[in-house]
């Protein structure tokens, strides 16, 4: 138990950091809220003053908003699906005693160290470019017409790139969880007559449930705000085919110079993120307390 004195001391010592963090968060949020109710367009600087709900009505009423919302959903869901399933699979493989395990693990983790715009560029030019990308060459080697990924499957391409970046994170967390499973439990299951599949289903998967929850929670929060990968590859297009909410805010606020509407989009994004967070904590957070 902390004494009253150490608690007071702890509060005093923590106060500067907390205050700075609070200001850093509160001021931009307050300003965004303020702008979202203002007429504030750089193209039309004469029009100022209170706008009421006009900015919100404009953003939500636009068909691009619905599409961006759906795209965000697909992006987050698709990446989660690939990383959790792929990560579990990779973790199971990496847990086997194999030669060169150390190097292999570093290789698996390395995509995580590549900055998002760089990763996107590698994929854009190195793999997915129909003219000189590796995949294009592969297609041609089989006598097929190379795919123009970013035009034909824009959202899917972005999902692949983002999943590639987050797979190492999922693998790492899931591998750690896997390694913490007691050897005796596996052996007991083996003695009890469980084959590999049943051991996975009844022993390993329940053991990893908590780690999977953590992966889903952390990744969702980051994936809601995916931006650089879209900016570098598709630019949100064709049309709005690969625009998510974060990119829509950018398009409205910066590309169309409508600060008011952009701010309204930002506020909506914050609200959506919070709804998702609450929903997730309710749905999967139960695994965390135990």
């Amino acid at each position: 138990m902390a004494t009253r004195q150490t608690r007071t001391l702890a509060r005093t010592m923590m106060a500067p950091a907390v205050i700075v963090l609070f200001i850093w968060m509160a001021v931009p949020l307050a300003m965004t809220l303020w702008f979202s109710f203002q007429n504030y367009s750089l193209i039309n600087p004469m029009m100022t003053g209170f706008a009421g709900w006009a900015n919100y009505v404009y953003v939500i009423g636009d068909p691009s908003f619905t599409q961006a919302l759906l795209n965000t959903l697909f992006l987050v869901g698709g990446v989660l699906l690939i990383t959790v399933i792929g990560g579990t699979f990779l973790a199971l493989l990496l847990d086997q005693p194999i030669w060169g395990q150390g190097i292999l693990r570093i290789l698996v983790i390395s995509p995580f160290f590549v900055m998002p715009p760089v990763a996107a560029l590698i994929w854009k030019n190195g793999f997915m470019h129909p003219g000189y990308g590796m995949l294009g060459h592969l297609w041609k080697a089989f006598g097929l017409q190379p795919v123009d990924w970013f035009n034909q499957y824009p959202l899917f391409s972005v999902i692949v790139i983002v999943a590639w970046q987050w797979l190492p994170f999922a693998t790492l967390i899931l591998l750690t969880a896997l390694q913490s499973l007691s050897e005796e439990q596996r052996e007991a299951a083996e003695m009890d007559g469980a084959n590999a599949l049943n051991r996975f289903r009844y022993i390993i998967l329940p053991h990893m449930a908590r780690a999977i929850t953590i992966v889903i929670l952390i990744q969702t929060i980051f994936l809601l705000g995916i931006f650089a990968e879209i900016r570098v590859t598709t630019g949100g297009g064709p049309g709005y085919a690969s625009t998510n909410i974060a990119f829509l805010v950018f398009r409205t606020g910066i590309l169309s110079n409508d600060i008011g509407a952009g701010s309204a989009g930002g506020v909506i994004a914050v609200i959506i993120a919070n709804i998702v967070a609450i929903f997730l904590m309710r749905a999967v957070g139960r695994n965390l307390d135990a």
Partner: protein
Amino acid sequence: MGSISLSHVNKSFGDVQVIPDISLEINDGEFVVFVGPSGCGKSTLLRLIAGLEDTTSGHIRLDGQDVTDAPPARRGLAMVFQSYALYPHMSVRDNIAFPLKMAKTPQAEIDRKVDYAARTLNLASYLDRKPRALSGGQRQRVAIGRAIVREPKAFLFDEPLSNLDAALRVNMRLEITELHQQLKTTMIYVTHDQVEAMTMADRIVVLNAGNVEQFGSPLDLYRKPANRFVAGFIGSPRMNFIDGAEAGKHDAHSIGVRPEHIRLSTSEGAWQGVVNVSEQLGSDTFLHVQTDFGLLTVRTDGDQTFTHGDKVWLTPDPNRIYKFDAAGQAI
């Protein structure tokens, strides 16, 4: 049926030979205890029988059938681990039912067997709890329950009681012995506690550095130890060993006398000594007496009170002096 036979079993981990060459015949229905000092290979031997480790060479037979290369599930043995190894996310009921579920037993039969096991082991009121909400002794019983529902050919226990406190250990010891009398199934039990070994076993295997030093009934080991190692390992407090001239009088390289086979007197006897430490247990008193041939332990009744520096005389029971040759073998 559950007779187990090992012939020339050898186990090495890389270059380290843990078990050089062991042959054992364990009869159906027998309660056999493996004892030995830490690191002597008890667990390894048990895991070889269970199939959790591969033998390097040699054969293991179950009811005459060669199972050396059979996977654990095929051998029809059940194991109780030292750490219990319960499945933490399953209720007690599901834990006990797990082996039956894996064997695709019909649900009605599963329920019947689980209820029977729960009643046998006094677990009926905990069936819906998770293992973490149980005490150590209850967890141990769940692990045993999970083992008995399968009706295995033999039970393998690896130090199942070492995580329990002393009182509970005595209880569980009795419960396991009772279980054995009730089920009459072969049991192999690993422990380094010689009280468990002496009280529970039909026969004891004394292991040392991967070798069988002696295989016999508890009283055999106590009365006729095959060598100095067994003599020193079985019996508490330890046997006293005397080398040199005093042993020479008995035509031996060394002699051994158990603390309970030495008579104590304040006036006369064979050996003279001075009390060093007196340990009083109430029922008995253990005296550590400094003599001309080293420190000897003597067991006397609890009414004797001696203190440091008291002069005493010791007389060994002439019929209970064990003689050993230079190689440590009993003569």
